[in-house]
């Protein structure tokens, strides 16, 4: 007896999801294996650090400063309902460093980097450049994938550290120019509230997010099929997959850290 269609469709969907999860896990394991085993392609790694890290600075910086400013305004408005306006510096600092800095930076990079990697590697797949690497005695996992994933893992904590500083500065600028806060007291409150663990936990999150967003870009690009349409699909899947994984990992890590 065949199952009713909704069950069959749900079952097929769940199986497909599990197959994808398994394939991505195996791909991520292969990427880690490729990172630790020679040969190492240092030129590729430096190039990816430049592209993923340095070239992402403007977008991460702009996002952070606006987020910090908006956060200060919202906390001031909400806090004024129960006379808690003075907590603006504390909550902005904690919110940016523990949560928003890593998540916002990672989401921006999911859009910029995961999409870019998926499109680039997908186009290489479509034009047989990945097959060419095989025939030139070069393992694509080591030449293409490992440098990108390693660059993501190394660069994201640095970007997030910069985003944290800029985000807090955004809150500072809005609070001191529009909300009547004294600059020295704002800085003192920010420094007093933050512990070393607040900063470190945010940077650990950034490292995990860096791994996830580069793996998703690489995985979808590497497995792209079907020409230009396939590359487009790979790019979309990379961004959506990376964003969902970033939120899921953020929840798990936050539950673990608190």
């Amino acid at each position, binding site marked *: 007896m065949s199952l009713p269609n909704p069950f069959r469709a749900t079952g097929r969907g769940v199986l497909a999801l599990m197959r994808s999860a398994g394939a991505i896990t195996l791909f991520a394991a292969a990427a880690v294996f490729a990172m630790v085993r020679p040969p190492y392609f240092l030129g590729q790694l430096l190039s990816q650090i430049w592209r993923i890290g340095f070239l992402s600075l403007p977008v991460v910086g702009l996002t952070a400063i606006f987020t910090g400013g908006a956060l200060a305004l919202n906390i001031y408005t909400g806090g004024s309902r129960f006379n808690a306006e003075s907590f603006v510096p504390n909550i902005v600092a904690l919110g940016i460093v523990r949560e928003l800095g890593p998540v916002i930076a990672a989401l921006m990079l999911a859009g910029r980097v995961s999409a870019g990697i998926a499109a680039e590697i997908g186009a290489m797949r479509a034009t047989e*450049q990945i097959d060419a*690497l*095989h025939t030139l*005695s*070069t393992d694509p996992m080591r030449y293409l994938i490992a440098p990108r994933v390693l660059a993501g893992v190394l660069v994201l904590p640095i970007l997030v550290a910069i985003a944290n500083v800029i985000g807090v500065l955004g809150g500072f600028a809005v609070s001191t120019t529009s909300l009547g806060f004294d600059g020295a007291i704002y800085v003192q409150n920010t420094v007093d509230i933050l512990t070393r663990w607040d900063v470190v936990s945010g940077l650990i999150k950034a490292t995990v997010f860096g791994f996830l967003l580069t793996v998703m870009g690489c995985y979808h690009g590497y497995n792209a099929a079907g020409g230009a349409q396939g590359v487009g699909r790979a790019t979309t899947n990379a961004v959506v997959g990376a964003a969902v994984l970033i939120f899921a990992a953020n929840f798990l890590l936050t539950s673990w850290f608190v």
Partner: protein
Amino acid sequence: MRDETIKIAWKSVTKSFGRKTVLEGLDLVAYEGRSLVIIGGSGTGKSVTIKLALGLLRPDSGSVEIDGEAVEYGRENDPGVQQIGMLFQSGALFDSLSVWENVSFRLLHAEHVKKGEAKERAIAALDQVDLEADIADRRPAELSGGMQRRVALARAVVGKPNILFFDEPTTGLDPVTADLINQLIVRQVKTLGATAVTITHDMASMRAIADEVAMIRDGNILWHGDLEGVDSCENPTVCDFVAGRYSPEG
């Protein structure tokens, strides 16, 4: 006297993609030092046949052997791969690298040749395919399709391989450039004394390159013989295909 040593052997190879069976027990041999051209309609599995020999695909059953050794899937680290050169249909040049870095890719990354020497050897390889040294620092995108194909040929032969694969080497080129590519292929194969396997739809290319011709149909070899056998119409289907005559039987 003709060398009958078998260089590459496809033994009862079956390969499917999903529900579509592309090769169904394919048996084929390429003899050492000879140039085999594989012809056949679109989607008959010509490219798959080459990719199996390169270890880019894994056969569902059967095996491909080079010098009597089974080809392993994903064997880019196998020293055996270094005796193989491959010219892809699209050229498959790396956009992010200059022409000389493309040509010397294997020398730099697999054989760890120093940069200066690798560049010299790349320029020498470019000269062998009638390209000037002044294009060495350009990017592939700055070159015409014919020049890109010649750069890809230089990349295929720079390591002096003894097996060369050519996947549709003249597709998309004008007849004059296609003829140039054919001549360069013949010259390189002769100079290296290599075994060559080419797949093509271009009958002029087949006539220029082939010592032997094999035609694939329905996942297996329909006919395999000397180039002369094509013209003497040993097999009517092959004869129709080469003449470009539509036949309801395929």
